[in-house]
């Protein structure tokens, strides 16, 4: 009982970085632990390619530390679409569909990423309804805000 209490209420150090990610903002410590069990942590070096444009997307990436560059394939200087920093995520459409990546992503500086595989997310939908509904709501908000941004850029 005491062990369960301690496990639920005391967070490991890397949870602070996970808490900065908007998708996990509304998760409790226990729920974050459930998601953390599914996350793969990877380190990328500056200029290393995370994924290519047209590659089959299988996972969403969360930036725990550092920055990445979203650009047209092979054009990191003149084809920059966006720069994404710690606390944000990219490749989130891969969670919803088996579609090719829309752009290339490179590490703009040395960075640490957490990766959630689509099948793990789909399993989460079947086993942890509260966690997955919170994630899905945050994901919908994120996609909505990106859509609004795109529409705004088109209009302006």
């Amino acid at each position: 009982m005491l062990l369960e209490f301690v496990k639920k209420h005391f967070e490991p150090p890397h949870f602070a970085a996970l808490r900065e990610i908007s998708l996990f903002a509304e998760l409790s410590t226990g729920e974050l632990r459930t998601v953390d069990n599914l996350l793969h942590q990877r380190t990328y070096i500056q200029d290393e390619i995370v994924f290519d444009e047209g590659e089959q997307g299988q996972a969403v990436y969360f930036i725990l530390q550092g920055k990445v560059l979203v650009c047209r394939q092979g054009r990191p200087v003149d084809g920059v679409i966006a720069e994404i920093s710690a606390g944000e995520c990219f490749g989130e459409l891969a969670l919803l569909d088996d579609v090719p990546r829309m752009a290339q992503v490179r590490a703009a500086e040395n960075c640490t990423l957490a990766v959630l595989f689509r099948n793990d997310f789909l399993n989460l939908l079947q086993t942890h309804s509260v966690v997955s509904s919170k994630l899905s709501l945050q994901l919908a908000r994120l996609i909505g805000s990106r859509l609004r941004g795109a529409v705004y850029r088109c209009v302006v």
Partner: protein
Amino acid sequence: MASNNESAGPITWCAIIGITCMLLLLFKQILWLVLPILLGFVLYYLLSPMAKRLVLAGASVETAAMALSGTFLLVLGGWLLVMYPWVMANAEEWQSTSLRYLVRGSSALENILTGLQRKFSFLQNADLEESLRQSLHAIVSQFSGKHFSTAILALAGWLPSLLLTPLITYFLLRDVSQLRKFVASAVPNAYFEKTLYLIHALDRTARLFFIGLLKLAALDALFLSGGLWILGVPSALLLGIIAAVLGLIPYLGPLLGCALAVMVTSTDFPSATSLVYWVIGLFGLVRVVDDFLLMPYIIGKSMRIHPLLTLLMFVVGEAIAGVVGLMLVIPILGIVMVTGETAEVIFRDTRLRARHVFARRLRQRLDEQDLSN
């Protein structure tokens, strides 16, 4: 990904078959460990939907794993405790009944052969009846003293090893995501996403195979029990279930199941020779439906293995590791096949290789940076 339009080439297929044969040789040596692990995986695939439901209902993964594997262990232990005195009380009677069925069954087989020899002259010259009679008499005379006790001792010898099964299932149910993370952590960044896909594909293939095999056994039990009941054979349900379980051993299993049913029929109905033919016909029909319809559809489809290759691999598996080889060859081939196909896709992907080499160069440059300063 290893999809249908990216099937493996001939060199990869040779490697897949070669590795399957080598693994069979290895597994034959450590069968005491392979069998509980294999049964642990089967149980894991059976219990994982229930574990998901428990977790959805609010239980933690640990609790669900503990509850399910613990329940299985308790049921198994309880069943053994209940069965033990019953087995001990009836063992002597079963031995004499088995011997009676064996004697009657062998005499029925001799009668069939005698009938065939009368009809076909070329069989009279082959001296088949005499050699078969001698073999059967040797088996019958040694049955009580040697074969029966050997079978019981072998079963008792496997028990401690089989008790590992619920423990393996518990750890699989609890830690399967950690296991995936551990395997993926060893893979370079460039191949990471494809490796995750490979692990998922392996999991899916194994799940479909094991569940498919159990579905096949259930269908066999249903058809055989129903058929035997219609024919009026006693203990049709028990015989059908035993034959279906034996049928999980390719080739040899169905023959053993059929022999068992024939022995029971010829003992209980000594004058009804035509009933024996009907029973053999029923087993033949179920076998044909299994091999040409259900097995390629349920199991072959789950692994995308050509039925001819499945058949050839059964022969190869039997030649390498006997009955064990027959049982293990298709699951091993399926796992090696998915691994091989995806490895080929990754190896052929020049872009992924280039990215990996580029990342290595970047890391090396970073490591050497302070050395040149």
